[in-house]
């Protein structure tokens, strides 16, 4: 089966250069990265090494300055902003460090948002939202507003929002960064369960405690992928 062998994500020679005033920042330089469907990849490295930039390119929030990006067989490196938005709404689920729930919307409406942007019918949206909230154990908070939830609960709602549309890949940027260790562990546990159910996940974290869940570790240093890590191991 060709589909199973082909990587879901393939970056080749990806560079990202930011131009600010007279300074050029090489946030990524010649990054090659493949992620297969169903993999759980942790991306680590010191602050400023380009982790968020890499995730933003993987999530089609930004496009590379150089290199190619093939997502599920489609070359996506040179898409316009509008085309990227379209692919993003189908293929990507984001989880942010700061939860990023929308304060004016209740839990149901927050989780429903990605489905609305796909133009899905209300009944179908309802079913999927309930399923996703059931998964993160927050169905009883469905009419609460973000301000009425704890940080851990907010991040679980954010996880539900990321998975509700069954995206091809889940991207999380330091999802436990704003949580205490108990709530952080709970969110990581949740991601592990999603992975067990077949989700493809790429997570940026520098918290070694949560790395064990990931099948593979990618380390960045100064915008390049470096092949060292004491925790590095291949999936059998």
């Amino acid at each position, binding site marked *: 089966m060709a589909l199973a062998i082909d990587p879901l994500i393939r970056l080749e020679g990806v560079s990202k250069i930011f131009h600010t005033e007279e300074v050029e920042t090489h946030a990524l330089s010649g990054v090659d990265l493949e992620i297969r469907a169903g993999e759980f990849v942790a991306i680590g490295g010191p602050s400023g090494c380009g982790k968020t930039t890499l995730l*933003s390119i993987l999530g089609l929030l930004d496009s590379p300055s150089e290199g190619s990006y093939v997502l599920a067989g489609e070359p996506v490196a040179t898409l316009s*902003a509008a085309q990227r*938005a379209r692919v*993003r709404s189908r293929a990507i689920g984001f989880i942010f460090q700061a939860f990023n729930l929308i304060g004016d919307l209740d839990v149901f409406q927050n989780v429903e948002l990605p489905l609305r942007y796909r133009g899905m019918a209300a009944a179908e949206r309802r079913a999927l939202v309930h399923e996703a909230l059931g998964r993160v154990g927050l169905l009883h908070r469905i009419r609460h507003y973000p301000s009425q939830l704890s940080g851990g609960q907010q991040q679980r709602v954010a996880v539900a929002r990321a998975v509700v549309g069954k995206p091809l890949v889940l991207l999380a940027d330091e999802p436990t*960064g704003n949580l205490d260790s108990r709530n952080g562990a709970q969110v990581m546990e949740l991601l592990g369960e999603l992975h067990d159910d077949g989700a493809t996940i790429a997570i940026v974290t520098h918290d070694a405690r949560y790395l064990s869940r990931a099948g593979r570790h990618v380390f960045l240093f100064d915008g390049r992928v470096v092949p060292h890590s004491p925790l590095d191991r291949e999936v059998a």
Partner: protein
Amino acid sequence: MAYETPGQVTRAFERIQAGITAVPGVASGALVSAAPLEGGGSNGLVPEGRPIDISSSINSLMRLVTPDYFATMRIELVRGRGFGPDDRQGAPLVMVINETLAREAFPGQDPIGKRIACCEPGPDGSPNWKEVVGVARDVRATGLEEEPVPEFYLPMVQAPGAAWSWTDRTMTVVARAQGDAIPLMAPLRRAVAEVDPALPLYNLGTMQGRLMDSLAQSRFSTMLLTLFGALALAAVGVYGVISYGVAQRTQEIGIRMALGACHADVLAMVVRHGAGLAGIGLVIGLAGALALSRLVSSLLFRVSPTDPPTFAAGMVVLTAVAVLAAAIPARRAARTDPMVALRND
């Protein structure tokens, strides 16, 4: 009938004057080159004692009248006299001036007997002096909103030859009815036709009607001003609130885009917000308008303030303005970089 000389023109108007006063039911009648509210041609006048020079002239409106004009229009002569049968061609040239001109030309003095040069050169190019024989009360010459301006009256029969081309040889017949004015219109028309069937008598109406029109016009422009003022305010208000909202919600818009919102989604969201504001404004405005309709109806002419089409048109226009005002910040919002969703940690 051909009117080749100024004399022929004057004589035809004199016959019309005689004809209209003979119409039964007419208490008095007169001719004037421009009735009140109709404006009038302006001339530079130089009062006696000032250099004969354009810089010392006073710009004034000229009215050619037949003697009964002041009585017919009940324009009070506050000093001196009006015109009479002796103020003929060949007799000393006379004029009646209004109070405003009297104040400007002869401040603090009695204008009666003073002379004013105007309208055409005298013999050998010397100033053409006319003697002020009366001062008439100010009349609003061009509209009810306009302050009185300097104005002077000349006997029609002493009109400078050139004046007939200034006035396009057109006079306005004014008649005061003993009773109802409307039934007099047909006989007045006939009286003019008897002098010359080819002379068009047009734009017949009552002075009351003209007053109403003038009033309606000024109120209409006030209303338009108010309306445009309100629209401009609405546009600025919606623009301001939406711009502020968009700036405040950059992060949220970025998040929505990260979750799959496209340009059109963001545009629609912001414009919907603007329309929502307009909706709130409309509900409040509608309630206010209905509550105040009694008051407002006195300001409107032939339009009921609760007229459904008027209301509907107002709502459509206001909504359109609000949507346009929201469109500018909406476009700005749609250009938000979705990266702000990741970067704001």
